[in-house]
């Protein structure tokens, strides 16, 4: 009990004094996650829409694969990316292992199926609504995708935020491919794991508070957006 309260005090001190190690870790976390979610969205959102407006042979199969990928254990993704990027792997020459880029790659793989799958469901409902109109107006496939993404943007932001929530809290994959190297690839989740195992609870808790704050903020944003979507005025 005592270690918790002193830990909390120390945690707030670290946050309020903007401890430089803490700030560095937070910034790297945000940088990796924001980049990964941006890339995953650029692929996942159009993919979700594309899967709705195109009827092709392996469409159902593709959607099932996407849904299956969504449930992929991050550790396994980490292992896979590790093998790809390790010196003997096919992309070993790029020397990306244990860099933030490797962590971004892993997170894109983890988060993209989630974003694609959620946006697919959203867009499918909108397409059912718009179908006759867009066909009647002779909209091309690219135009259909564009219109659906634009008019569904509020619901799609929820998909992106869900991806962000998953990425920022992820630990297994980025631990493997990033290596949790001080001042290089140490992010919120990996250093919480490390500091806890070292018995350094104050620092771990400071990081934990920040992580929880970010997660709550994202959830609040999702909640607010889905609420305004029903009242929809933008």
């Amino acid at each position, binding site marked *: 009990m005592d270690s918790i309260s002193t830990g909390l005090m120390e945690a707030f001190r670290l946050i309020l004094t903007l401890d430089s190690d803490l700030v560095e870790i937070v910034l790297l976390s945000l940088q990796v996650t924001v980049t990964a979610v941006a890339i995953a969205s650029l692929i996942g959102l159009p993919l979700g829409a594309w899967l709705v407006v195109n009827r092709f042979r392996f469409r159902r199969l593709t959607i099932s694969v996407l849904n299956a990928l969504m449930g992929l254990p991050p550790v396994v993704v980490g292992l896979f990316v590790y093998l790809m990027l390790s010196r003997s792997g096919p992309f070993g020459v790029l020397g990306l292992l244990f860099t933030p880029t490797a962590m971004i790659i892993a997170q894109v793989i983890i988060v993209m199926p989630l974003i694609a799958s959620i946006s697919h469901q959203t867009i499918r409902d909108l397409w059912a609504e*718009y179908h*006759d109109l867009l066909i009647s*107006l002779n909209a091309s496939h690219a135009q259909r995708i564009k219109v659906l993404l634009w*008019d569904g943007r509020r619901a799609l932001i929820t998909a992106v935020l869900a991806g962000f929530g998953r990425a920022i809290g992820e630990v297994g994959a980025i631990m493997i491919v990033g290596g949790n190297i001080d001042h290089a690839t140490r992010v919120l989740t990996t250093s919480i794991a490390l500091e806890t195992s070292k018995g350094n609870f104050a620092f771990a808790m400071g990081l934990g508070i920040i992580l929880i704050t970010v997660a709550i903020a994202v959830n609040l944003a999702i909640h607010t957006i889905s609420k305004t979507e029903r009242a929809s005025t933008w």
Partner: protein
Amino acid sequence: MVGGTTILPLELSGVIARVRGKQLLGPIDLTIGATGLTVVMGPNGAGKTTLLRVMHGLRRISGGTVNWAVEDGAARRKQAFVFQSPIMMRRRVIDSIAFPLILHGMDRKSAKIRAEDWAIRVGLGHVLQDWAPMISGGEKQKLAVARALISAPEILFLDEPCANLDGRSTREIEAVLKQAEHAGTRIVMATHNLGQARRLASDVIFVHGGKILEITPADRFFNEAKTPQAKAFVQGDIVE
């Protein structure tokens, strides 16, 4: 008509529409010529919507042919359709009306100027900036008519465009349709509003049980319908 080649006449021959083996429509033989305002009448479930969708190419046919005077892609660009339940995009009223123009390459500013003009013509001037899914049922139908007419189609299909409209709004829409007709737009409209059919139709297609029972000039349909079903329908009786 916007000059140049015309997509009319439209010819249907031996057209059959089925859903999972169940025949909804046909066989239909029909020509939609270059001029006039054709009203498609018939009781609920007769096949009016199905017929219009087949003509517009929204429903695949299981037999027969649907031919325009030009190739299908070119014909589609000169058609417009107003659906039985209006489809409201999640946009403002003015942006919804401007949508077909912007989709086909007009710059936003000119498209919006025209959209405003059309909104006022159908009586939506007071809700220009409102969110389209939020306006009233009748206003949605007016929006759909404006959105269909804004691209100056050569032929306009309307599926019960006045179903939710009060008397005054119905007259407003009818006036707009008459103007469009005078400007050269061919109109094919489904309705079971007899009064409206009398006011607008130059000829009538009477559909029953998926088949066309009569195609006649309007005055003949209302005064001397041949089939007992059409007679009953004109008299406001229940059609068996």
